[in-house]
Structure formats: C-alpha cells, structure tokens
C-alpha cells in the first residue's frame, strides 16, 4: 500500500506541473481524487486492510491525500495565475502620451467673467442678464442720452429695420427702434423697473459698436456692469467697491484711482485707473480700466424712484480689456478667432 501511495504521489508530482489548461487540470484532478480516481480507488481498499494495520495505513492514506492536494492546489494556482497573466499584454510604456484628446477648456472671457462675478457675489451682487437686442428707450432714453446724441447715430449703433418684430423684447414706446445694445447699462434700467430697492446687481454681457475691427476694437465685445441702489450711497462707497474688486483680483496692495469724467447717466462721473504693477506687459504706472459714477437723479426719476430717497452707484468695464491686461494679450481679435493654441493657454 505504501508503495502504491508513494508511486501515486510521485506520478502526480511529475504530471501536474505539465498541465496547462483548466479543463486538463479538471480531468487530471478527477483522475486522482474523483469518484473513479486512483486515490479514491486506493482508499476503497482500506476495507480489506487488516484491523491492526488500519491505523498505520489510514495515516499513510491521509498523508498521501494531503500531499496530493498540495500538488493539485499548486497546479491550480499556477494555471489561474497564467490565465490572468494571459489577459494582459506586455508591460506598458508609461512615458507614452495619452492618445485621448486634450481636456476641455473654458474661454478666457468666461474665466474672467466668472472670476469677476465670484468676487462680486461675495459682497452681495447677483448676476442678471438682459437682452442683446434692445430698444432705444432702455439703451439711451432712460440713460439720459438725448435723441440727438452722437452715440445714437446709425454711424455708431447697429439698428434693426423698422419692420423688425421681436416676440420677447418689448418696446417701451411703440415708435422706437430696435437696436443692438451699445452697453450693458440697459440692464440697469430693466432691473430698476422690475426690482425693488435696495438693488445690488452685476450684469455681464455682449455689446455692439459699429467699429472697424482692429487690435483693440471689435464689432461685438463684452462688458460687465455693477449697479448698487440704496439709501445714502456715497462716492466713498463706490471707491471702496473698486478697491475691493481689484485687490481681490490682483492682490491686496493693488490701488485704484478716480479721474473726473463725463457719462450722461452718472453724476459725478469718474474714470477708474488701476495701479499696473501686477499686470504683465504694461509699462505704465496707471492704466485705465473702466468708468463709474453716482447714478444721476434724472435716471432715478425716469424709472420712478425718488432721488431724494434713493442713491446709488454704477461701474462698468470691458471684459476683453480686463482679460487682455490680466493675461497680457495684445490683440482683441484672438478672442474671436478661437485658435486652439490660444484657447488652451488659460484653462
């Protein structure tokens, strides 16, 4: 018996390492330990072993069984490992670039707009939108721009034909013309007419001028405008807003300064300069960044607010100009050409 068992183990030890596939393994396993297997057959002979030899033989059989199982386990582990390994190709070259396309990118104008609105959101400004097709009332009349003002010229402003009809841009007066808004200030008027003071809004958006396209002019561009209306709003509050915006954008030591200017819908009016030290490619101490002022009482009167009670400020700036200053871009046309080499620089 002992010899038979030893021979069986020796056979398994030499045969099992040569088994490669799982079916072959299963067949081999059946041959040894299956119901008709050789070990099973030997175990069946236990009955004919004399009683006094049974403990010894039983022990031998158990040892053989354990040894056989070890061979089987090893073979199975090897086969399974080989099967997993077969699912893999050769090791990768980790230095090859990914063939997948490059990540998506936000346009620099979006980045700048979102950064500005985030900064303004922190001090209570909410973002509003208004139509790009406007009427003369919202774009000019309500903003104290007289009928013969040069800005209203067909030379400077795009108009739609008098026959144009819009389903969702309402005229204030039946005989006014539709035009493409020349500034986002029209949104101020819509907000004032709709809202209840106090009001604190920022309106970014696309505006249109009848300009020759060159490195600094574009038929359409984007503005961002803030309006705050409350009681006792002062010039000093306006200065505080500008200081806050640009310190948030460019760092604590950024300064702004006001220069007196003229806009029809603010009084007093100022142009805003920015200390340019933090800007790339600006070889000047101060650079103009936008216009602002205290809402002219006539604007309040026109939209039905009592100027004795309500006061406010407005600030507006060009987003292309801001983006150009922040990133050091020297041609406004790049924003509209969408060369991917340009677009991928800002994400």
């Amino acid at each position: 018996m002992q010899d038979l068992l030893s021979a069986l183990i020796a056979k398994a030890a030499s045969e099992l390492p040569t088994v490669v596939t799982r079916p072959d393994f299963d067949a081999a396993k059946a041959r040894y330990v299956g119901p008709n297997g050789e070990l099973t057959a030997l175990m069946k002979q236990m009955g004919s072993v004399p009683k006094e030899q049974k403990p010894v033989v039983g022990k031998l059989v158990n040892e053989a069984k354990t040894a056989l199982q070890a061979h089987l386990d090893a073979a199975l582990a090897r086969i399974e490992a080989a099967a997993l390994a077969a699912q893999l190709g050769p090791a990768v070259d980790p230095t090859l670039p990914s063939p997948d396309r490059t990540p998506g990118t936000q346009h620099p104008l979006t980045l700048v707009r979102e950064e500005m609105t985030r900064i303004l959101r922190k001090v209570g400004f909410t973002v509003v939108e208004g139509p790009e097709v406007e009427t003369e009332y919202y774009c000019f009349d309500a903003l104290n721009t007289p009928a013969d003002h040069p800005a209203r010229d067909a030379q400077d402003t795009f108009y739609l034909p008098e026959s144009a009809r819009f389903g969702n841009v309402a005229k204030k007066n039946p005989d006014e013309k539709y035009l493409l808004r020349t500034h986002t200030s029209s949104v101020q008027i819509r907000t004032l007419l709709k809202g209840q003071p106090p009001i604190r809004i920022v309106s970014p958006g696309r505006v249109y001028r009848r300009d020759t396209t060159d490195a600094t002019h574009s038929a359409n561009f984007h503005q961002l405008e803030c309006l705050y209306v409350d009681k006792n709003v002062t010039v000093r509050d306006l200065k505080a807003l500008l200081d806050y915006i640009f310190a948030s954008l460019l760092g604590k030591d950024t300064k702004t300064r006001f220069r007196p200017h003229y806009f029809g819908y603010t009084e007093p009016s100022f142009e805003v300069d920015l200390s340019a030290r933090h800007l790339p490619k600006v070889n000047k101490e101060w650079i103009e960044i936008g216009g602002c002022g205290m809402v002219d009482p006539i604007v309040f009167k026109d939209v039905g607010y009592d100027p004795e009670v309500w006061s406010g400020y407005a600030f507006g700036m060009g987003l292309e100009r801001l983006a150009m200053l922040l990133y050091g871009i020297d041609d406004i046309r790049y924003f509209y050409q969408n060369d991917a080499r340009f677009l991928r620089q800002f994400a």
Partner: protein
Amino acid sequence: MKVSLNWLQSYVDLTGVSAEDISRAITFLGFEVEQVIRTGAPAFNNVVVGHILTRDKHPNADKLSVCTVDVGAAHGGVRTIVCGAPNCDVGNSVPVALPGAVLPGDFVIKEAKVRGQASSGMMCSAKELTLSHEAHGLLLLNGGLPAGTPINAALPTGDTVFDIEITPNRPDCLSHLGVARELAAWFKKELRYPEVSFTPASIGASHRTDLLKSIRVDNPTCCPLYTATVITGVNVGPSPEWMQQRLSAVGLRPINNVVDIGNYVMLEYGQPVHAFDAHKLAGAELIVRSATEGEKITTLDGKTRELGSPMLVIADAHKPVVIAGIMGSADAGVTDVTTDLILEVASFKRQSVRATGKRLGLGSDSSYRYERGVDVHSLDEAAHRFIDLILAHAGGQVAGPIHRVGGDQPWEREITVTPAFINAKLGFEIPAEFIKTSLESLELALVREEQSEDDSLTWTFSVPSWRDDLDRPIDLVEEVVRLYGTEKIPSSVITAPGLVGNDDPIVLFNRRVTDALVGQGFNEAVNYTLRPGKELAAWATPAAVADLALANPFVEDQSHLRPTLVSGLLETLQLNQSRGVAASQFFETGRVFIERNGQLSECIAAAFIIAEDTGERTWRTRETADFYTAKRHTATICALAGIELERQPTSLVPVPAHGWQEGHAATAGDIKHGWTSTFGLVSLAHLKSLGITGKVYAGFFAIVSEKVSAEAERRSYKPFGLQPAALRDLALVVPEATSSAEVQKALAKVARAAVGTAFALEAVHVFDVYQGKGLPEGTKSLAYSLVFRAAERTLTDEEVNAVFTQIQAELLKITPYQIRK
C-alpha cells in the same frame, strides 16, 4: 483739442509750473491728456554763442577745418575747435557746446584730439540741438549776440502743447480761455481775460450801407443770434509772428492776418467767427435761410457741394456764401487783395449744424464747436475781440454799427446747495471753506449765504453762462470733488448688507452647460453674433434670413444676426484646420435669434461640433464620434434646461436640410413651444464648400430666454427593488422605416399590460439593431432586453415565461412586427 502753454500763459500765470504738473492738473480736472508735444529748444548747459575768428584746413584731413572760436571770457576766451561743417566761416556766430555739455541723446562733449589736432568743444548744427530733423551745416545765429551768451537766449523759446480730450459736457473748454480758467482754479491763480479796447461806442460816423445794409434771419430757431460788422480799409498780409507761432503750435497753418485772427478768436473764446470779402457779396443784405433744393456751393476746401432744405446757409442776394456754422464758400473768402470785410459772429443751433454736417459729410473746427454748444451769452465779447484784433493787426476801421439780429435770452441760473449735501454725497468731509472757494474759482458767484440756527450754511451760487452743464446741486458735487482732487477720495471697507439673491437662471444654465461640455473635452469658443447673410442660407429659411438683417451693417460679412451657433463653430474649425492646429471639439454658448411667423425671438443657445479629422495622428487610434455621440451631448444640454430629450418626439431634419446632412441629422422641439434642438451630421456638401476635411457632427440647442427656468424641482426618492431581476431578450422584425421609439413604445405598453400588478417591468432597452442577411427585404431587426423584477420576492421562471409568452402573442396580434427566432 490742442492747447499751447505759451498761449495759456496769456490768461493764467503758470511760470515755474512744470509741463508734467500741468498735464497732471488737466488729467485730474477731468480731461484726458492724449499727448504732450514740446517744440523749440530744450534747456542747454554749457552751450554758448561763439564767434568764429579763424579757419584753417586740418593738416591730416581734407574735409575738416581747424577754427579758433571766441566763446567769451567766462568760458575760456578763444578756443581751438575742429569742425567738419562746410559753413564754419570766419565771422559766423554759431552754437558751441563746451566740454562738459550734454547734448540730446546723452552725447557728452569732452576735450578731444581729432586726427591729431586738439579740439576744445563742438560747434553745433540745428539737428544736434534737436531744433530740426536735418543738419545743413552749423546753425548760424544772429550776429548781434556777444560771445559766451547762453545758447537758449539765442534760440526761439519753445512751447508745450497739450493734446487733450474735452468731454462732451464741457464745450466751454474747447478754447484756451476755458482751459486756462480750469487751470487757474486748480493752481489757485488769477484768470486774466484778454484786454479788448474796441467798444461799440468807439465806432465812427462813416457807415458803409452799400456794403451791408441789413441782415435777415428767416429761421431764428436755428440761428438765435446773428451779428455782422463792416470793416473797411484793411491790409491783408501775414499775421504777427506770435500769433502764427501759437496757431502753428496747435496745428493750424497760418494763412493771412484776417483768417488767422478768425482762427485765433475761435481758439481763444471757443466762438467760431467768419470773415467775408465785402465786395464779393451781391447786394447789401445777408440772409440766414434754409438752402433750396439743389443749390450749390464751393466750400473753402475746394469741393462743390449740393445743398438742400433744411440745411442752414448764409446767403447774399444770389447765392449761399456760408454753410452756417460749418464752412464758408471759396467765392466770398478773404484774399490778398481784400480791403473791406464783413465779420460774422453768430450762434447756430447745435442740432441744425450737426444734421447738416452729417448730411454733407463735412466737419470743421467751427462745426465741432457748434455741435457741442457755443455760449451765446459770450458772443459779443468774442465779436469785440475779433474786431479789436483785426483793427490792431490788419488796420482799417469799423464802418457802421454792429448789425445784430436775434435777441439772446438773458442768462440767469442759480443753484442752492449746502456743504452738508455735498459731503453727504461724497461720504467724506471737505471743509466748507474749500467748497466755497473752489466754486468761486470756477466763476460761480456766491449770491447768498444763509446760516441757520444750528450754524449750518446754505449757499446760493449763480452759474456762469458758459456752464450750461451745471444745473442741480449734484452737479456742484462733481465740481468740488474735481478741484479737491479725485485722487484723494479716501478708501474704506466695503459695506455689504446681506442682499443675497439668486443669479439669473440664464447665467446658471450657461455655467452648467459650460462645465458639462468642458468636462467632455470641448474647447469653449466665442464667435461674433453678426454673420454674413449668404452664410445663413444654410441654416435658416430665406424669410428668416431676411428678418435677421441689420438696418445698417458696417461690413458685408457682419450683416445679419445669427440664428445658430453652429456656423461660427464651423468657422472656428476651419481656422484651426487651415492653421494646422490639432483640435476637434468646440462648443459655444450665447444668444441667437430665431424667426417664427415673421417674428424674432432672442434665445439662449448652446452648440458643439466634433470633427472626425482631429488634425493630428496619435500612436493609438480611438473610436470616432457618430450621430449618437452628438445626440448624447445634445441630451446633456437639454437636460440642463430641464428637458429630457429621449422623451421628446424626434425626427430627421426635413429636406432641404439646410446645413445638416439629410438622413443623418435630427431635430427635436419646436421654437413655438419655447425650445428647439438639432443634432447629427453637418451636410457633407456644406463642409466641402467650407474646405473642412472629414465629417463633422454637431448639436445645437436654443431656448427662448424667458423660458429658461430657475432651479429644477427637488427630486423625490423612488424605492427600487432589492430582489434579483429576471431578464428576457426579444428581437422583433419590423419594417425598416419604423423608428425604434415607436417599437419600444409599443413593446413597453404590451409588456406592462402583460405584467399587470403581479410584478414590475423595470426597463426596456434596445441592445441590437440588425438589417441584412437572413431578414426579409425592407425589414430590420430590433432586439430589446426586458428587465422584470418583483419588489418582495424572487421571480420564478414560470411566471416570467408566462408573461413573456403573453407579450409575444399580444405583439403579433396588435402590431405588424414579427418575432425573430
């Protein structure tokens, strides 16, 4: 406007104030300084007048001379200087830069040896002293100056010219006096008006009514005041040197004394004036009237212009001689032989001048001022100055009274303001005394000062006539803060009481679309809203294209509002392909304008394109996009607007398919319900016409702006079964034109009915589409997977099979579909 510092000095003493400080003052008074131009010589040290005493040929150089030059005892007497200029002749007076002098360009003069010959200084050309752009030998000076005189004393004094932008509210500053007034206020100096010795009382007895008898103003609304004066016996010749210098400095070419004086008065007072040759007028009456249709005039610039009503002209008995406020005729102009003048000083309505100038495409320094507003109340002052300067510099005498038609309404305007009001508007304290003196320095006269019991002051100021822009207390706030210095507005902490609202739903939508598509690897593009009309034919009906046209486009390729974002994105792709830039996925959000029944709607839109040609080869190829990729991205955008695209009726784009490829692009939604979308393959023919290589898939979504909704409703949780599912697959053979949506809808309906309430049909989805071998002609097979599940138990095969059999039987009964075995 260009302003000469020398000229300003006539009205305000700015001695010792640097050009930089003046420039800064102008800036902070509210006028942008566009340029500061310096003329004349800069200040030199160690450059003196020298007299050439001897000249010998240089022993070692043909073209050089060795001169002895007297530079004055204080500078070492006679020096030997080597010179290369041809005109270093004995007896000439020339500029000599002594050792130690620094000439422009940091050119330091030293004791030197030139070809072996010691040279103690340099004789200078005009170019070396930056007086001229060219060197024509040495600059020869007037011989009367003693040797050693500092060179600046021998050179014309320079001028500094400020080119400044005058804001439209300040026409009073379109004059040297106006700017001087501002500077006087800023520097706290006195403003000196020009001295005018002429007064109407000084007019003599000789009245030349043959030259001008009367004035007729037919249109007093457009010409509120017209004055004309006859001056006889003038000598037309050059104007005085100082006047020529001032005019040249501000960019005007001196012509003759009469014309120059006219320009001078205009630039001094801001009041345009005009001089006629009295003998060139027919009749003795000047008529201010509307031009008649077709009437012609040849203006001073030599161009013949056709006039028409309601353009305002000044005419004699036969013809117009001036386009009112804009330009005179060449025929009636002053020439060298003119002896008798009629001087016109008038007021014209700004709108009238503007409309005429615009119609004729003609502008002038005069019309520029009239269009912005000329103070009619200062008119007489300017007229007297005009007469005075003519008499002084062209001679002659006033031959008759000043003809004057129209009455100026008397000017009277007062503003009452308190220092408390001004400080409340500013939010910081400016002392009352400063406020008062500031306003007074701008010639606002304090009419009344009242002090109430609590010591608070109330002032009433009268506003000068040239400051029509000052009308309300708030207008004075600006004047005060201007003179206080806007740079000194204190900074403070922003006060932001909680006013937190929500951002506009449109903003949120755009933000989400941008995030989603950027996350899918798209590059955001921004294209112009205005597109060429011919491009739009591919994207909108002819009627819509007509409605999208602007009334006054600026250039042909930006003539129409865009009805889609896809055309812009294709242009973007085209540009990148043409530049060889690898990029294949772009998107844009923005406004579009969609026509329906002759009416346009402004819509919020998003679109993307995916190009098959990525513009680069990669070492491993990735699967390319197809129609269903476009559909997926479009569905993503729709979902962000609260629309579930898969539940919307979707059909192939109708033929003709515009920019979309017939049979390979689909549309869902309708602008009449507030939104629309189109997605799929861009027309191959269209791509070919654009020169774009490879297929392009695109998607476009637009929603009427007011339909963009705020936050989506909060979802409520639906329980889901935890028991195992039972799956059955069913392939149906259907006519090939049948849409998947139709089959799926029928199948789901039948399946749900079969399941009843016993358990649930959890999902039906198509997993295979087949057409071809093994199927009858004109049919296709759609294979669906049905997922059944019960909430509380494991389903048995028997019950599922029973339902599945029932579904098949029912389908065969009520639909034309066959079961594929």
